[in-house]
């Protein structure tokens, strides 16, 4: 018995290089692009696109999709030399984070077919460092049926109006908000929107605003409008049910879909989960309050998710061909609006079948401001750190003055390290 085992093992060892060699030979022929993406909620759509591209050109896209540890996996792959041909990141501050690795798309013909507004976030030092993947918006999503059933006909725009609506809902036994405070990314999205009007009104635009913060000439504690941000967080917490600090993304989407809560602060990526929980749900999009000025109540509207092409990859040309196909072919142009069901940054693309995308367009057309995701201009890492500090404020760990101190200290430290 033992002898047989030995022979078997020996055979296995001898034969294994042969198998390996056989596999390698097969791989050589057609191009396989190595891709690292996030947003696992789009996995089906990614696969559909991959299959279509393979049919059209014979090129395989080998996609790995990750979420929470995306950044760490990407970082370790980049500095271990295992650079993906195509990868994703945020726009703005990430342009310089990955500058050593990305290919400049300025001279590619297909870039001319992208809305110039969507390109703003990826241009750095005059170079187009990435390809805006889709246009996203975040603000308050509400359940239309709940609003109707509770007799709310005028949509709120200011902080006071939001409070009045919340009060009315609470009195009727409906929880007004699901907070999402447990997710470190929901908090800053909710919070920064409340002062989205401030950089242009008082500090000469977002770039100047961020520049002043980075150099330390402007501190959060010197911005009087930070009270708008705290007021909004207080409001959501007060009307956010018995356990406001425990609500996460799943709680938000499922509570809204079932009509348990009336409003959540989320973006268009949440629509899929909401509609999967309750296909009959009717949802709408509200302009978020910036203090008590109804005219500046707007939505956060930007192209943040960015596709980047590796500069030194041997498949660079194939990766560029794929982007061209995505921008110009019929399937490619229809992929974002038709399959992903979000707004496409390509000029003249179709409108998607999505409540939030439609309401986004309607809100913008009605004159509500669409603010850029200016907090993405803050140095990499601030999102999580400042998010945790705001989370501490919501949990009652710090008061407003202490929170502002902490925000300034954390920001200064990261800005210094990023130089």
């Amino acid at each position: 018995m033992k002898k047989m085992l030995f022979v078997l093992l020996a055979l296995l060892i001898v034969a294994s290089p042969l198998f390996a060699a056989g596999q390698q030979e097969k791989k050589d022929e057609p191009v396989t692009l190595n891709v690292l993406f996030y947003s696992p909620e789009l996995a089906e759509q990614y696969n559909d696109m991959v299959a279509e591209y393979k049919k059209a050109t014979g090129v395989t896209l080998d996609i790995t999709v990750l979420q929470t540890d995306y950044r760490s996996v990407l970082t370790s792959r980049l500095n271990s030399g295992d650079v993906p041909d195509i990868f994703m990141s945020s726009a703005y501050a990430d342009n310089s984070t990955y500058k050593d690795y990305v290919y400049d798309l300025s001279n590619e013909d297909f870039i001319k077919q992208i809305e110039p507004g969507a390109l703003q976030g990826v241009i750095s030092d005059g170079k187009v460092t990435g390809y805006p993947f889709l246009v996203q918006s975040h603000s308050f999503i509400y359940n239309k049926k709940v609003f109707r059933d509770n007799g709310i006909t005028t949509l709120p725009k200011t902080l006071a109006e939001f409070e009045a609506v919340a009060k009315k809902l609470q009195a009727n036994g409906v929880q007004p908000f699901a907070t999402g405070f447990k997710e470190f990314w929901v908090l800053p999205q909710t919070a920064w929107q409340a002062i989205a009007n401030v950089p242009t009104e008082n500090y000469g635009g977002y770039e100047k605003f961020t520049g002043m913060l980075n150099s330390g000439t402007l501190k959060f504690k010197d911005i009087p409008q930070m009270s708008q941000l705290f007021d909004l967080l207080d409001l959501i917490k007060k009307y956010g049910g018995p356990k406001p600090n425990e609500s996460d993304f799943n709680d938000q989407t499922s509570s809204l879909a079932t009509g348990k809560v009336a409003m959540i602060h989320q973006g268009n990526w949440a629509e899929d989960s909401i509609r999967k929980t309750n296909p009959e749900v009717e949802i709408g999009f509200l302009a978020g309050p910036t203090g008590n000025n109804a005219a500046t109540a707007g939505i956060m509207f930007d192209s943040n998710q960015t596709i980047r092409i590796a500069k030194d990859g041997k498949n660079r040309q194939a990766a560029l061909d794929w982007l061209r196909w995505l921008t110009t072919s019929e399937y490619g142009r229809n992929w974002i609006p038709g399959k992903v069901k979000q707004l496409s940054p390509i000029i003249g693309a179709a409108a998607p079948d999505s409540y939030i995308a439609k309401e986004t367009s309607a809100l913008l057309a009605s004159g509500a401001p669409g603010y850029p995701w200016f907090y993405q201009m803050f140095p990499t890492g601030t999102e999580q750190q400042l998010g945790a500090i705001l989370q501490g404020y919501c949990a009652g760990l710090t008061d407003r003055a202490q929170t502002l101190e902490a925000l300034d200290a954390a920001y200064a430290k990261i800005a210094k390290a990023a130089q």
Partner: protein
Amino acid sequence: MLVFLLFTLPAFAAILVSVEIPFLMSVFSSFTKWNGLDKAQTFIGLENYKELFLDDLDMWKAFGFTLRLTLGSVLAVNLCALLLAVLLDSDIKGKNVLRAAFYVPNIISLIIIGYIWRFIFSAGFESFYQKTGWGVFMLSWLGDVKIIYFSVLMVSLWHSLGFYLVVYIAGLQTVPRDLIEASMIDGASRVRQFFSITLPLIMPSITVCVFHSLSNGLKAFDVIFSLTNGGPGNTTTTIALDIYRTAFVINRFGYGTAKSVVLFLMILILSIIQVRVFKQREVEV
């Protein structure tokens, strides 16, 4: 002699390449400013350590929480495990089933346990509350900064108990029966037996378990990562999570490695002290 050394060479080489050299490389990184992505690392001497000791309140808060968590879990885990081991070593019915039941959580990954408990604490407790109406289920176990320490402690206790239980049961079974019988004849009570005979004789098991729970407590990461993600605020951020964030979220690899070198030294020193102290108390039969 030379031949013996020669035989250790393959193992030595493997450890050198996979452990020692990367360790020395990271010690070097801790003296640099590097974002983990740029191709060049800038040497900045002791700057990282200076910032760490003089200007990083968050890190020291994380340090404080880690120590509290470690202390709590070393005490809770060892006391509970020892007590249960004594119970399960005696002649009670169904002890094999119980032993297995206590061990099962230990074979599930802590990340998954974190998510399971996250669900239990929020959705699970809510429906318990609707069924029973007990206020304890309506507490915000993961959102209230006063309770969250106990939530974390409870989950890690629930998870790791089985492992220590097994070690203690093994230890209890090495205690010679004749000594126990002799003490019974001399009229020693159960309690006296335990403290005068059993406890000194299972000291080796206690050394191992305390050592293990101490270093696991100081390195705690996965349960925090999946259960609370360091929140609310930074109240449950442990040193390991802080290091992870410094390196991978804020992209400060140089500074992150400086922190981990300090963590390494801390674990080393604490473990040496602990093993020294406990070894002195071990007795031979």
